[in-house]
């Protein structure tokens, strides 16, 4: 049998040692009436070669986005160094357990400490945890942490946050006594006015928001501080290559999804969530934390710390139920950030934005205008055309040329007929933009094209 090493002879010897006659004798504690009499209705096992062929057949049913790709909406087609794949596939990282035993887990622990340090730096915060499942669940945990820290029950969420993030927050909060209020969108950015008061636990915003527009996070932080609420920003980390870190602008909790930091799109998962805050909140933080201490000989040693917050110690009084997180993907992020360094990250941010600027110019020539021209964008832009039929036609024409793109906003916003987003990264080539604009012209001004 695959992956089972013992032979029939081994098993006989072991059964004798245990003092039973057969394997079946090991299962007599299971009531007979619920034991299966026949085998499960699953296919027969495959050899490794058959398996590989089966998987290739299955995966060929996909059309990958590896070519020209302008899809965004939280998952972006960034590149990553080969070093990332090489190092994170080392089986000493891949097949290790959670580092509860620090003496034989120093490698994982030090890497997590380095991850925490770099994430804190990008977020502009003092501390960061060892990772969360993803950006959406990290945002939900941030809302709950703010409620716990402020002992208040109102959470104000920007309607321009990723719809799936908002929905996740809603799912997490609806079973506990909470008031979730959505702050409306005015001209492509969030208008919190009149919604933040002394009952507010958290004010939540996304930077840049779902339409790609840059929010005034400094103003959000200030408005929250005035009523002693906590401000939360969900951050696209690549943007910090040129944009100011939310933490530096006074945001209390910075969360986000790490996919853009060296993680494949992978149909949306696994990536990793990150969670950064200020030192004073450490005892309210969800998830694992690694700190530095000493061993008995005074040597520097890394260890999981503040474990009394966590479920395995505090049970129902824990700050969160999170146990397994996304450590290996966080390691990807760690290696990626280290490989980029300050200049590397700035370059990725700059080129992504340069391409987006060029895209706006080129599409303008095809008569496609930005939906929110007064706002600043980073690498993702919301455009507006006559109606959703034209959006669908554009998308179809792009697909016919092997170009992925066009996220129709009306899938999430009833009042955004004709609006769609396109995103650029450093992988967007000038010729991709030419192809995009050519197809745009053919779609929208066929008489000229």
């Amino acid at each position, binding site marked *: 049998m695959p992956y089972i*090493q013992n032979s029939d002879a081994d098993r006989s010897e*072991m059964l004798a*040692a*245990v003092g039973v006659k057969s*394997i079946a004798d090991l299962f007599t504690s299971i*009531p007979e*009436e619920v*034991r299966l009499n026949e*085998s499960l209705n*699953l296919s027969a096992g495959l050899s490794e070669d058959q398996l590989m062929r089966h998987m290739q057949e299955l*995966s060929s049913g*996909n*059309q990958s*986005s590896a070519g020209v790709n302008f899809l965004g909406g939280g998952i972006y087609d960034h590149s990553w160094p080969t070093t990332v794949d090489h*190092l994170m596939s080392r089986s000493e990282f891949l*097949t290790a357990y959670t580092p509860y*035993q620090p*003496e034989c*887990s*120093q*490698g*994982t622990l030090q890497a997590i*400490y*380095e991850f925490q340090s770099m994430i*804190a*730096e990008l977020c502009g915060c003092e501390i960061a945890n060892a990772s969360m499942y993803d950006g*959406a*669940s990290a945002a939900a945990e941030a809302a*709950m942490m703010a409620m716990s820290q402020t002992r208040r029950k109102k959470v104000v969420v920007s309607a321009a946050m990723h719809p*799936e*993030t908002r*929905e996740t927050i*809603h*799912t997490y909060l609806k*079973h506990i006594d909470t008031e979730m209020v959505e702050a409306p969108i005015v001209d492509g950015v969030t208008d919190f006015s009149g919604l933040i008061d002394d009952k507010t636990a958290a004010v939540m915003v996304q930077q840049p928001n779902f339409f790609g527009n840059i929010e005034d996070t400094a103003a959000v932080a200030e408005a929250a501080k005035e009523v002693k609420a906590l401000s939360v920003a969900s951050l696209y980390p690549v943007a910090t290559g040129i944009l*100011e870190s939310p933490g530096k602008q006074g945001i209390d909790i910075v969360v986000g999804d790490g996919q853009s930091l060296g993680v*494949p*799109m*992978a*149909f*949306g*998962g*696994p990536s990793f969530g990150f969670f950064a805050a200020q030192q004073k909140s450490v005892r309210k933080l969800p998830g*694992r934390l690694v700190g*530095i*201490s000493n061993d008995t000989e005074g040597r520097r040693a890394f*260890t999981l*710390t503040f474990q009394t917050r*966590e479920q395995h*110690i505090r049970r129902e009084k*824990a700050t969160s*139920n999170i146990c*397994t997180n996304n450590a290996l993907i966080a390691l990807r992020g760690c290696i990626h950030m*280290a490989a980029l360094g300050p200049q*590397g*990250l*700035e370059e990725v941010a*700059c*080129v992504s934005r*340069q391409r987006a600027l060029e895209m706006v110019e080129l599409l303008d020539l095809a008569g496609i205008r930005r939906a929110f021209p007064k706002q600043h964008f980073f690498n993702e832009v919301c455009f507006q055309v006559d109606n959703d039929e034209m959006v669908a036609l554009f998308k179809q024409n792009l697909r016919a040329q092997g170009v992925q793109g066009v996220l129709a906003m009306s899938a999430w916003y009833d009042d955004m007929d004709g609006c769609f987003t396109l995103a650029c990264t450093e992988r967007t080539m000038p010729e991709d933009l030419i192809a995009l604009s050519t197809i745009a012209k053919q779609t929208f001004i066929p008489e000229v094209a």
Partner: protein
Amino acid sequence: MYLSPVPLLFEDSRPGRRNWQTPGADRAVATADLPAHMLREKAPALPELGELDLIRHFTRLSQKNYAISTNFYPLGSCTMKYNPVVNERIAADPQWYNLHPYQDDDTVQGALELMHNLAADLGEATGLPGVTLHPAAGAHGELTALMVLRAWLDDQGQNQRRKILIPDSAHGTNPASCALAGFDVVTVKSNDRGLCAVSDLAEHLGDDTAGLMITNPSTLGLFEEDVVKICDLVHQAGGKVYMDGANFNAIMGITRPGDFGIDMMHLNLHKTFSTPHGGGGPGSGPICVTEELTKYLPTPSVVQGENGFELSAPESSIGRVRGFHGNFLVLVRAYAYMKRLGAEGIKRVAENAVLNANYIRVKVSDHWRVPFDRICMHEFVARPTKEMREAGIHTIDIAKRLIELGYHPPTVYFPLVVAEAIMIEPTETESKETLDAFIEALIQVAKEAAAGEDILHQAPRNMPVSRVDEAKAVKDPQLCFRCQ
């Protein structure tokens, strides 16, 4: 093991060292139209290292770890089985990892078919046909299932039911998940055979009972022999039964939770279905539920329609519990594992996991105290003898001595119902020789412990660091490089 210290990335950083570069960047062009207050003055202070130094840094770090590929991990409740390398090759296919979650359904038919068929196979294996692949880990699955329970109770007009009963041997995530879902926790005692005490359970059942969370086999490695009766009692009281499926490895292909009365359960694909732990994730914690509860599962699920597979929202869905469609590449690995094994192979997994655990148990039970010394499932719990404790030896010392001898320690100090617990789960993938060597090590340590030998307090002496002062890490917190 790489024993020398590895400096932090930041300590090895030198200004101007470059590694990954992206041509064509022009900061002036990129930022010309942006107001100054939005911009940072200088790039984030990430470390600056060349490629070779980076490779050495992380390679050396990797060599400071125990891992399944180098050491035996008899870690109870964690099912640290071999992670087949073919699954890594399969998951590295660009036709999987280059998919964007917002591609049109007709361009991701392979991915959707895989998810659809994996869900169906997990439904078959558990006897619970409603499956969501969304939850990112076991605890996330627990929380999701409890939200499903809330939705069902609301629909029944039974939202006064707020109490969840949990046996005292349960994982910490169970009560923590209850708290997050707005339930109150009532602890149910274990009886003298280590099983959930039916009489104590019955006393706690009533109009306020939302359900029971039971781990079966339990964290003591015992099958809950009265599980059918237990489920009946909870159902009669108007509640549902949730099963923590962390220990599903023991019973896969032997019995099905859906057949013995369970309404909902989670699976840990990173345990039972062989996907790697990765030093703490990513996992995947699908939940499987009865037909009745299927309509409450999270959004989206994969259904087979006229034009192929598509993502859709269940009728009365609780909503989303995360972004996108689940930890997809973990699902790919688990799917490959199930296909490789097939029905027969899956049953063999449980049989060999249980045999391996019993083999260690009988070989060490003369040397260690085994509180429930009868045929166990995939794991069993031992503890130091009175003689060892009187000699001043604690479980922590045993664990550290085992590290010194080349073994990742078993799970220690859990479950809480056994003082100084040592929970041993060998999994099916270990050979008899490995088990024999581990048994010998356990017997050797037992003798040393009974004699109160000081090496147990000093252990481990051959690792990159000796025992770590965990109290200092809290008293003097150093959680990131810049804030030191």
